């Protein structure tokens, strides 16, 4: 900021202070009300939501699906969508560190003396985009399901096939309905309408590209799996 702008701000600020009110009691009243609201919210949440313990910590589990606390969901989602291993350190350390440094040094690269949000379009847009991105990632992280469960409702004759697909780990690379990951495999929610049953069977047996082959599955399970997938229209 130029010294002229700094001076202008200080003068303006003095005038605004003159016209202001004493901190006590005017601002203290607002602060006390807000403090009361905060405590009331915490108490109500504690009474309604409680603090139940989960099961005891068990390092030997093979079925547990770890999830972080909700305010880390945005980081968790970033880790989930960055699939190539080479980019993993970028997601775990690189992006958060860069964001923290940008946040820390904000007053040193934003030297525009303007304070009104409508007159600093870059800052306001960047701020709104960041908030929207974090909110969206948090939402995605919250709704992302475990890779061994398919929630969509199916007709009873396809239940067995649904269990086979869920248990075989297909959701690790494919999305089916709300569950599963968005890559590296294509979405299977409507696969039955896109390719014929024979093609599905062939993919499962050969394992095209990086997809592993599932021909080791017993024939009965393969049939149930193919029935279920080809029913997905």
């Amino acid at each position, binding site marked *: 900021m130029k010294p002229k*702008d700094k001076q202008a701000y200080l003068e303006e600020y003095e005038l605004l*202070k003159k016209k*202001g009110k004493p901190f006590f009691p005017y601002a203290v009243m607002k*602060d006390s009300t807000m403090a009361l609201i905060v405590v009331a919210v*915490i108490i109500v949440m504690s009474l309604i939501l409680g603090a139940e313990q989960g099961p005891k910590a068990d390092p030997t589990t093979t079925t547990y699906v770890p999830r972080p606390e909700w305010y*880390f969901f945005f980081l968790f989602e970033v880790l989930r969508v960055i699939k190539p291993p080479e980019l993993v350190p970028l997601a775990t350390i690189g992006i958060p560190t860069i964001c923290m440094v940008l946040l820390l040094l904000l007053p040193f690269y934003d030297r525009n003396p303007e304070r009104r949000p409508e007159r600093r379009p870059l800052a306001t847009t960047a*701020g709104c985009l960041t908030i929207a991105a974090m909110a969206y990632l948090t939402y995605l992280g919250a709704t992302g399901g475990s890779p061994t469960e398919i929630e969509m409702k199916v007709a009873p004759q396809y239940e067995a096939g649904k269990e086979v697909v869920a248990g075989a780990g297909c959701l690790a690379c494919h999305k089916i309905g709300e569950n599963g990951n968005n890559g590296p495999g294509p979405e299977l929610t409507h696969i039955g309408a896109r390719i014929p049953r024979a093609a599905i069977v062939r993919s499962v047996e050969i394992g095209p590209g990086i997809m592993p082959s599932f021909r080791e599955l017993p024939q009965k399970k393969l049939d149930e799996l193919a029935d279920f997938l080809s029913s997905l229209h």
Partner: protein
Amino acid sequence: MAKLRDAIIPAPLRKVAKPGTTPPKGPAPSDLKTSPPQRKGDLDAALEKAKEAPVETVAWLDQRLGASGFLTGMLYRKVPKGTNWFYTLGSATLFAFIVQATTGVFLAMFYTPSATQAYASISHINNEVPLGQFVHGMHKWGSSVMVILIFLHMGRTFFFGAYKYPRELNWVIGVVLLILTMTMAFTGYLLPFDQRSFWASIVGININGTGPIVGPYLSDFLRAGPELGATTLSRFYAIHMLLIPGAIIALIGAHLYLVVKLGTTAPPWVKAERPKIASPVAELEAGAENGRGNGYVNGYERSDGSDGTGATPA
């Protein structure tokens, strides 16, 4: 009773009534022939003295502490025109921290930071200690509330441009406080030692380990060894209870000091009315004499109640 304000507000700050406008003290002159002045009995004198007691106490303390100048300066300082409810988010965050600290102290009286006994001690708190689950719940949901409030406060400061000159340092301290708060959330999360805590902490520690060169040693430092071992929980407990709260309290002190010293900003859309007379006195008020950028922008109220522009008060 003597006014408390007169006892503790320093003389230059007191509003002094203009001569000729104060009503004269004492009873109106009465007809001395018909109603002679009453002489005070002993009881009346004692009662009058008792009424003076609170003011006397404060005056006694102030003569020994000398804090009245600082306290009145802090309490009666002016906040700029236009200060609205958004400005309560900062003190709300501080209050949420106080709630966390208080509930944390009470939980610490029952919690055992040992890998074999932590889960049982939390069960004990939840099921047997009176109001145990309630206090535990307050601490658990209080942490979410504090994270929400600190992000809202940061957003308010960002959109109001309150991080610009001369408050850059305050922003930097604030971001460090944000990072410390998230670290508190991370270290506190392991303490209940149930499945969710355990695995979330394992992943969190491993995320730290992915940093090149330093990362593996940082993970070893957090875990006190190559795997989660006997002292990992104690280490997280010490960090959560002692190390980071100490840093947070120190930084909150610095943050509040800067807020009082530099003042809070006005909302950016509020404009000041310029004084109508161009007068050197107006420059004086704006702090031009010490406007060399040393950050001193507070001004005291003038003792005669005027605003320094020479305009006649209404």
